[in-house]
Every structure is written in C-alpha cells, then in structure tokens.
C-alpha cells in the first residue's frame, strides 16, 4: 500500500533529514548557477550550444544562429535555474521545482551527452562515460520528486497550515 508522503509520519526522522539535505544541496547549486549568470552581462549559452553533439546539435545551431531564440534561451536558463533553486532551497512548490530542474539537467545532458565517439572542444572537468554529473543530478531530482519533503520542512508546510487555519482548506 502506498503511504501518504505528506503526513507527518511518512518518513523516519533521519530519512526526512537526508532528503531535505539533498533538496538543499541541489537547490543551492541551481540558485548559484542561475544568479551567477544573471549578474554576468557577458554570459551566453551560445558557446555551450555550439559545442552540442548528438541529436540536438542541429537544433542548438539553429538557436545560436537566431539572436531572438538565443536571447530567449539565455533568459530561460538564467531565470529558470534561479527559480528552481529558490523552490528547492525554500521548499516552495518543490515537486514542481524538482520536475523543472529534472527537465533542465536532462536537456543539458542530451545536448552534450558523454557518449563514446563524441568529442567536445572543451575538456570535461571529470572522466565520464555515458553517466555524468548532469545525469546523476537528474536521478537525484527524480528521487526528490518521488519523495517530496516541502510539505514537512519548507514553505509549503507553512502555506498549507495557513490555508487550513484561516481559509478552512483541508
């Protein structure tokens, strides 16, 4: 039988702490990735996209060739990463945050997958074959989606209790 993962006894204390720590770490990572791009006027996704290999490489090229698409892609990345970061870190609508974050890292993965035979102009910061840190972060975000914690620790808990107390929403 499935457990109600929003109830107070869904997890043991240490399970809950472990999941929240994972949520905070990933949230922190997204938040800084987003903010550091927002504060850098010269940042652009163009270099990353131009180095794209495999099935999305022609799409990447098309994005780079069109300044409007490129600007749009840049904004989505900067703001998207920042918002997902806030969501996970503060526990605000974190299930959606986890799904959005999952989509981001999977896109990063598939635009430049570490498959055998694909050569990238920038050397990676580690050694990867098929599995890289993007894919692992995607896996971790999937876990966060399956085991939500923001209704136990996070703004979502506060929002729910305010709703039930003042608006009578159960």
């Amino acid at each position, binding site marked *: 039988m499935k457990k109600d993962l929003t109830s107070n006894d869904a997890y043991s204390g240490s399970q809950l702490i472990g999941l*929240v720590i994972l949520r905070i770490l990933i949230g922190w990572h997204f938040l800084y990735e987003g*903010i550091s791009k927002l504060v850098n006027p010269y940042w*652009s996704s163009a270099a990353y996209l131009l180095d794209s290999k495999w099935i999305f490489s022609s799409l990447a*090229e098309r994005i780079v*060739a069109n300044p409007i698409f490129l600007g749009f892609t840049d904004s989505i990345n900067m703001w998207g990463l920042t918002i997902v970061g806030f969501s996970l*870190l503060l526990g605000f609508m974190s299930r959606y945050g986890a799904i959005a974050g999952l989509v981001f890292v999977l896109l990063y993965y598939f635009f430049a997958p570490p498959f055998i035979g694909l050569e990238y102009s920038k050397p990676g910061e580690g050694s990867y074959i098929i599995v890289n840190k993007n894919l692992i972060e995607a896996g971790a975000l999937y876990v966060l989606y399956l085991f939500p914690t923001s209704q136990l620790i996070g703004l979502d808990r*506060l929002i729910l*209790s305010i709703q039930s*107390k003042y608006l009578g929403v159960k």
Partner: protein
Amino acid sequence: MSHEIEEKQSDILNRREILKGLATVPVLGFFFVKLWQKMRLDKLKKSNLLQNLVKDNKSPAIVSNIGNNDHLRVGIVGYGGRGSHLTRGLGFATPDWTTNAAERAQNNKLYKGFTTFMSQADLNCSLVGVCDLFDVRAELGLAASKNEVRSGGKPKETAKRYRHYTDLLANKDIDAVIVSTPDHWHSRVAIDAAKAGKHVYCEKGLTRTFNEALDLYDTVKETGITFQLGHQNRQVEAYEQAKKIINQNLLGPINLVQLTTNRNSPGGAWVWGIHPEGNAKTIDWETFQEPSPNKIPFGEEALRRFFRWRCWFDYGTGLSGDLFSHDFDQINQIMGLGIPKYASSSGGIYFYKDGRDVPDVWNATLEYPDKDLTVLYSATLSSLNARGNRIMGHDATMQIGGESNAGTLGGFIVTADPYSTKYKERLDKGVINSKYPIYSYAPGSKEIDGITSATSQYFANKGLLYTYRDGKRVDSTHLHVKDWIDAIRAGGVPACNIEEAFHEAVACHMATESYLQGRRIEWDPKKRALV
C-alpha cells in the same frame, strides 16, 4: 479552562509549523552572505584588471558620416582574388558571388558573409573601369559592376573594359583607382595614376623593390593625391584598443615583440589554381612580365607563374610583402615604430619544393636601438600551430591572435608578468594572478560565426577579414576602402597613408634584401638608402 489550554496548544502547534516551514530560510541567508562576499571579491579583482585602467574604453563609432553626395567613379587594375574582395568592399560583387553567398546563408545559418555584404554602407560610387590581363577575370569585373544585388541598389554607371592600364588612366572621368595587380606592377600603375591626378588605393606590399617604393612615395607627395595602402588591419577595433593600452604604458618597458605567420595549406602557400581557360589567347603574358627582371616565353611555366606569382621574386617578395607586411603594419599601427635601424633575415625553401624561388620558412629580425627594441618575425607555410603575436613588456604581455583565447576573432589578451614591478603589490595581494589575463578583448563575443576554410580562419584570427563596430560584424576591407573614399571626399588623411606605407615598404625591403644578399641591412634616413 480547557478552552484556554486548547488555545495555547494551537499556538504551540503554530509555532512548530512556522519553525518547520521556515527551517531552510537560514540556509538561504547563508547563501546570500556568501554570494555577497563572492561578488565583493570579484568586484575588487575586476577593479584591478586593466579593463578599468584603460582610459577612453569606448569602441570607435560605427561609421563616420561624411556626406557622400558627390558620386565617385572608380577604376580597378587587377581583378583577381584580392581585387574582387576590394570591389566587394566598394559595393560590387559578381553575380556568382552574391548567388552563392545567399545560398550558403540559406543552408548555414551561422554564415554571415552575405548579410555583412548587403548591410555595408553604400559609398555612392560606380565601378566604371576594369583592367585585367586575363579575359575571364576582366569579364567578372564587368559583371560585378552591373550587379544590382548590393546595398545601394542599381549602380549608377557600369564598367568598361580596358586592355591596358594606361587606357584606363586616360579616361578623365575616372576619379580614383584601385591597384590590385601583382606587386611588380604596383609602382608603375600607382605612379602613373597619381600623375594623372587619380586617387590611389594600392594593395600591400607597397612595391616589389626598395627603389620603386622611394619613387612612389615621392610621386604621391608631389601630386598630393589621397593614397591608401591595403592594410585593412588599420580598421580593426581591437588594434585601436591595443594602442590605447600601449600608449598608457600599461605593459611597462617593451624590449621584444614577436610576430608570427603560420599556414599549412597549398592555398596559404600560394599554390593557387591554374584557370582552365588560361591560355595564350586569354592571357596577355608579355604585358604581365614587362616589369619583371627575368622574362620567359609563354607556356606551362608561364601559366604557373601567372596564377601563382607570389612564389617568385620576379613578381613579388614572397612572405615579406604578403604576410610580414601585415604583421609589421599591425605592430606599427599599435606601437608607432617606424622604420628599423637594422634588419637581418634568413630562411629557405624547405617544404614546397615546387620550383618557387621565395622561401617558405623565413625569419626576420628588426632592430630599433633608439627604442631599446627588437622585433622578431617568424613564418612557416607548413605548420598551422597558431603562435599569435606577442608584445612582451616588463610588466605585462599582450598576445594578439593565436591560441589560448586570444584566437577569438581579432581579439587579444594581456597577462601580467609574475616579476612585474608595476603590478607587484596587486600580485602579492592576489588580486591579480599572472596565470590569467588581466584584460581580454573579444569583440562580438556574443556573436558566433562559421568561418570554414583554414586560410579564412587565419585571416580572421589576425582581424584581417572582419572587425566589429558596436558588436556588429563588418568587413574590415569595406571599412578600409570606405576610409579611403571618405578621405577623398573630405580631404582627410587615410589610416594607412603614404607615410605609414613607406614604413612598411622600407622595413619589408630591408628584410627581403638581407635574405637575398645574405647580410645585415642598415637604413640610412639621411640618404634615404639601404646600406
């Protein structure tokens, strides 16, 4: 009583709810404290980068607006590869070129050559005369003069073909002449054009010999025409920025400058295609070889020489006039060096043993004792290991082109020297790191471009193909032609005027003569002679 307890419990629960709801907020607070510290440190580091030390950090205005009301009639002598690029800069491309470029732009969204051509300024000129000794090329020039695919629309006038350059110069309606013949014809055509009162745009290297350079210099001075030498690097935004950095002495004392050429393709080594329609009927070979010291009858060898003329001293000076001239002019533009006191050079034909007599590996040393400076030039046509050009100061080194980020289209980086005196305090404090650039200039870094061929890439890295104005890509050849046309109209002095041209010519001829004579050459400025 029980009611009170309930109230209290509900309060306690609320408090717990709040605590659990806001449990991670302190982490966010900690995040922002760290973010603020990081940004403050970055700001401190940035304020110590050269970027902020350079006064007048603005890029040059996109194009100066000089009234272009008077329509100018331009003639061209020599419509080869370079000639066709120069006329494109003037606003006239062959129909083949515009069709291919438009198609290429359709297929490759990253190719910007077509839009760059179509968006260049209309110079209000017509191409009215074309002189070329090869019929096929002359016809291409005529076709270009009629092509309506251009920024100014339908040309006001179209070109007539002239068999001999003297006939073209005899046309009183022609105001200005582009000389893009092989080097051995430069001085004769340019001198006669100047004497006929026509303004001259002459390709580099200025002349084939030192004496021709003297004659051309004197003629341009006497006639007072507007003269421009074809070093389009003069229009490159990056070099103007580099000049500001040098002028403010931000590199400290500079004692060594290293210039390099690295090519590794037959095209880059002047093994150009022999046109299938080139034969005794379509090529005026006798006129072609008229000014050259050695004459040969028309045949297979003559065809090779006609289409690959840069490989022989009879028609040019090889690496010296073709590529060293560019690098010398670049450094003369940035540092204002002038003519060296001594030059020596050596090299050989080590890779292209195809009957040429110019070296394919060649090194030259220029000495400036009054400036405490040596300029080293090193060239190979059999390795593409892009070394870039380096201005090496006691306090910092500027690297222009080449690998390690400086290869970004016409950009450069400045790196502090670990033993710098000027930056010692900053180096010690760690706000400057000698491993990372303290200034990097990458124009149009947000714009990406697909440049394909190795030779194009070579030129682009040297800033010879494209430059940037306000982050927008423009063809530096177009800007250089425009600079000349603007100077004709407004009576100004073009960027690579006859004085600058003379520096280039004398420096290159000193180095060439040193190779040919096997000894060091000295410049005597009083006698205006090589001794």
